[in-house]
């Protein structure tokens, strides 16, 4: 399939650097006036201003290819990408994963390939890396909760891994099972979801050139809290489709039941394509908040298929997307 390289964001959508800086300046100035008066009276003024967050950086990844995807997007800062996460295996607060994921051991790591494939076997993460060249893909990520980021992933096309595994004719769907080890993941000790976390894609979605397995971001090895050592990224779907710390990939002829479908079937469907016209029962999906844009910036409009409609809409031709949410 041909990967079209046209920019996938409208120029009008991008916050200009000046406006962004102005907003931050305004915020700081506003905060400064009030905080200074408070600080002087309490003797706190001598305290140095602390850095927003202190997120550990990973090892640099050598030799990945840059691509044109999202080249004109304004990236969400690394500290935000690595400190604001939904990864319930480490706790349900956004800050929990960054705080607790230190106990995850992403090496050694193996992934078990199962089901309707010729190469039904366990493969080491090192061998997976050799299957395909690594590329940088700058993708928007839209969370079902109404916020979004722009993340420079480093990864490879999932299709390369699937082709290597040689699925049989019975492989209609791919199921992704993620790690659920209570020793490494404190959140798994609490039965909030039916562990392990399971997600799935239709075969044509999994083979789509936009679908990648990410192993890094910002040119560095994937932080644990972002799903080390390997996580799924499907940019036109809500973020929860992207299973993290994947340990098993199973090919099947039946539609897999994802963890969120089990937890709340009326709220989360199998497809979970980003769709501003299909509201979540508890919130609208018309708009989203871009993370990193600060306290004083309005929401932005959510685009059908998260702005990737020209590349993926044909996968769902003839389907009722209201019913298949």
């Amino acid at each position, binding site marked *: 399939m041909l990967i079209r390289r046209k920019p996938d964001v409208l120029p009008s959508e991008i916050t200009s650097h000046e406006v962004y800086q102005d907003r931050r300046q305004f915020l700081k100035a506003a905060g400064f006036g009030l*905080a200074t008066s408070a600080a002087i009276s309490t003797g706190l003024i001598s305290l140095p201003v602390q850095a927003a967050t202190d997120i550990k950086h990973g090892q640099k990844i050598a030799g990945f290819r840059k691509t044109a995807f999202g080249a004109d997007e304004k990236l969400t800062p690394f500290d935000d990408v690595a400190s604001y996460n939904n990864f319930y295996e480490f706790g349900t607060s956004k800050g929990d994963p960054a705080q607790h994921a230190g106990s995850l051991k992403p090496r050694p790591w193996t992934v078990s390939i199962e089901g309707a494939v010729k190469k039904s076997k366990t493969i080491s993460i090192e061998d997976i890396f050799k299957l395909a060249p690594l590329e940088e893909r700058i993708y928007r990520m839209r969370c079902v909760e109404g916020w979004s980021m722009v993340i420079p992933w480093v990864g490879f096309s999932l299709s390369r891994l699937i082709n290597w595994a040689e699925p049989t004719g019975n492989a209609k769907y791919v199921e992704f099972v993620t790690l659920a080890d209570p020793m490494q993941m404190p959140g798994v000790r609490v039965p909030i979801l039916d562990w392990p976390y399971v997600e799935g894609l239709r075969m044509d979605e999994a083979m789509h050139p936009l679908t990648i397995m990410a192993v890094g971001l910002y040119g560095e090895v994937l932080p644990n809290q972002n799903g080390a050592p390997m996580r799924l990224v499907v940019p036109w779907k809500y973020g929860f489709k992207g299973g993290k710390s994947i340990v098993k990939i199973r090919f099947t002829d039946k539609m897999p039941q994802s963890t969120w479908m089990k937890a709340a079937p009326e709220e989360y469907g199998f497809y979970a394509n980003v769709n501003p016209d299909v509201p979540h029962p*508890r919130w609208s999906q*018309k708009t989203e908040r871009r993370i990193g844009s600060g306290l004083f910036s309005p929401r932005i409009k959510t685009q059908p298929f998260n702005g990737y409609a020209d590349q993926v809409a044909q996968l769902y031709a003839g389907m009722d997307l209201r019913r298949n949410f």
Partner: protein
Amino acid sequence: MRPDKQQIARIKAALFVLALVPLARLFWLGFTDNLSANPVEFVERSTGTWALVCLLVTLSMTPIRLLTGMTWQIQLRRMTGLFMYFYACLHFATYIWLDHWFFWDEITADIIKHPYVLVGFTAFVLATPLAITSNRAMMLKLGANWKKLHMLVYPIAILAVLHFWWLVKKDIREPSLYALVLSVLLGIRIYYKRTQSRAHKPASKAQLNQQH
């Protein structure tokens, strides 16, 4: 323990400063760029949580009286109640300004369509007449109706906890903690109401009114 007038004044002053700490903290975190990756959500959550905390503190004054016979703390109730409304106003202002930038169509649709927003908004609306009639002049003017009107605090509290409960996706541990506290506070009232005529006799109403 029965503090005298001057001590009460000091306790009130200390409580006033204490109740402003959450707001000061938000300004401090804002100034140091520490409001997390999603500052709007952070401010929304924080102001909402403190409104709920102030509400539960307000509702705990009577159970303390029932359990211990102590009455002086009732004099703090107006302030904690008003701080509940203060944080609720900040919460609502964050929602309509920082979160939705006064897009009224969007806000209206959000309130009508989504139960958790609707119950939160209802609680806020119901709390408004309580805040307005919290001064002495209104108390005198409304007489017996004042007490009836302020019974609204019970539905407000239930709606506020429900607002939090329906907001969370799956992990209901935190909202259920607030629900538990509220049920205990209401449960104590119900228990004493039922057994009022027997044994433990709470301070009379006349006695309480004197202290206001």
